[in-house]
């Protein structure tokens, strides 16, 4: 294991993605540090999801190198990619659960795929605690995805993404379509799991509350590149017009105020205690 691999689970250099003549990314660079939650923001159509799909190997890039755990994904042999696949988990926007399997069986699919030696009894136990760990009620394990609400489906998708205890977790708009309470709970869950399991998280979001609440750093996609990466105070210093508009818009100010108030309350509470 090289030194670089330990520090940067994801390294992107000179990535170019295009659909026909339409160029989505041009010469894009990005590093994700071990153990951080990296928020990825950008206007609609700036290619946030395309970036994620390139990293996990679903979208072959036109040019550039993508290294995940030190393996070059773009030129990797199929076997090598398999060695990387059991170290990441992906939560797609709609959950992408297998509709003919129950939630518990969905969680077991990656386990059976990679570790056929595990006994059914252990598989059942693992899928049970994973389901509960992601905040679903116990009885959700035996339900089919079509019987769940949108928010529960996302949690079930997260349970499947966490099935293999991955080191790297990709979340594509996890809080989109959730009510504010559900969204805040999901944020909290992501943060807790990251701290407990030592995950590195690549999180695509539009949700300013999520950015303020749980992201260690934020990467901003615009003009076909990552124009800035940093903590939110660092980004506020940045003079790119889109960043200024994004973080100084009315919604951003509201999210920031909520966050400050929340911190003040915490402090107050801990002092009391």
């Amino acid at each position, binding site marked *: 294991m090289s030194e670089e691999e330990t520090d940067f689970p994801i390294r992107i250099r000179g990535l170019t993605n295009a659909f026909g003549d339409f160029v989505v990314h041009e010469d894009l660079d990005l590093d994700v540090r071990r153990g951080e939650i990296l928020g990825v923001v950008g206007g609609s159509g700036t290619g946030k999801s395309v970036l994620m799909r390139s990293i996990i190997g679903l979208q072959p890039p036109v040019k550039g190198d993508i290294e995940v755990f030190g393996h070059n994904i773009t030129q990797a042999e199929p076997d090598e990619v398999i060695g990387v696949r059991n170290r990441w988990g992906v939560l797609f926007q709609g959950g992408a659960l297998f*509709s003919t399997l129950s939630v518990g069986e969905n969680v077991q699919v990656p386990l059976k795929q990679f570790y056929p*030696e595990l006994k059914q009894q252990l598989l059942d136990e*693992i899928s049970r605690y994973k*389901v509960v*760990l992601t905040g679903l009620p*116990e009885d959700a*394990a035996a339900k089919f995805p079509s019987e769940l609400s949108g928010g529960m489906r996302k949690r079930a998708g997260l349970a499947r993404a966490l099935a293999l*205890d991955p080191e790297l977790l990709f979340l594509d708009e996890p809080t989109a379509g959730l009510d504010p309470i559900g969204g805040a709970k999901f944020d909290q869950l992501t943060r807790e799991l990251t701290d407990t*399991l030592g995950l590195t998280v690549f999180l695509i979001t539009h949700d300013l509350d999520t950015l303020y609440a749980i992201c260690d750093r934020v990467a901003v996609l615009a003009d076909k590149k990552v124009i800035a990466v940093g903590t939110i105070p660092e980004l506020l210093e940045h003079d790119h017009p889109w960043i200024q508009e994004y973080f100084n818009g009315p919604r951003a100010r509201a999210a920031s105020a909520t966050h400050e108030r929340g911190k003040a309350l915490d402090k107050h509470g801990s002092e009391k205690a």
Partner: protein
Amino acid sequence: MREWAEYTIEEAGGRATVIITGPLVVSSIGKLDPELRGITDSIQAIDISEAGPIDTVGAWIVFRFSQRTGADIVGASEQAEVLLDAVESAESDAEVSPYRRQTLGRVTEHVGTKVIEFMGGVRSSVAFLGAILIAMASLAIHPRRFRVKALVRQMELVGVSSLPIIGLMSFLIGIVIAQQGAVQLQQFGAETLTVNLVGRITMRELGVLMTAIMVAGRSGSAFAAQIGTMKLTEEIDAMRTIGVSPMEALVIPRILAAVLMMPLLGFYASCIAIIGGAVIGDVMLGIPFWTFLARVQEVVPTYDFWVGMVKAPVFGLIVAMAGCYQGMQVSGNAEEVGLRTTAAVVQAIFMVIVLDAFFAVFFTEIGWA
């Protein structure tokens, strides 16, 4: 080479301790798990201080072991403590798979559901026919609401674009009938009757029947899949909220297109089949091509043409109705679209063949033999 987690039991001062070595992660505990389950001796402690990296699965196995045997967990690292707490709080004994019956119970249940579904299906398809009639009537009262463009578009899809495939199929069927018929009729020295055989059977039966089967496969399935997908993506609901009746916008144009195009396609198919027969007549039987065609005019009565033309729109109606009805029944997931599309084609072909048998008896009885 994978590294497996292993265990040893150490006894000291009447205390038995399980000592675990090797990584406690999901990829390494495949062998350890059944072994730990097999331990029936009294164990007072489980020591994981010599274990390598740990993840939630490893933590779970240790937690479950200590819970079952009452052993104390010792030597847990800070990370292991966190993970042990996490899995302990997430412990559950709920069912993972939905309840599934034994084979015998499942078969009876399945038969029962099928019967209920069949009765429900009969009822709702009659209801669907009624809805079509109501939509037709309301279109007759408000002719401006009628979607001419949609109708023309569907006529193109059902009719014009299927001309090549139906032409090829009919031509080949004409060849097969003439060739096989000629072989049999030659035994009686009656090979000239091949003309009667090809002309009458294609005009009365095969032209329209084969066309209906082809349209069911091409257009009936497309109707079911299109409408079914629109149902899944809530397009149909969106239409209703805007005040557009899906019956008028989607179903009626498709049904009318099929009803109008089927006679044309059926007649076209019959003609091409006769041409195919004439080619074989020319090549195999020495009947000149044009003589064959002229002879068809003499031996095929006009009512054979009408037999085909009366059946064609009815078959078109059945095919389009099966497609649209099944499409409208889609709900739930993507799998349903596939099931309903298959059902649309199977039902359409089955109904067409059943009705064709009734028509055959009927036309013979009224003297159009």
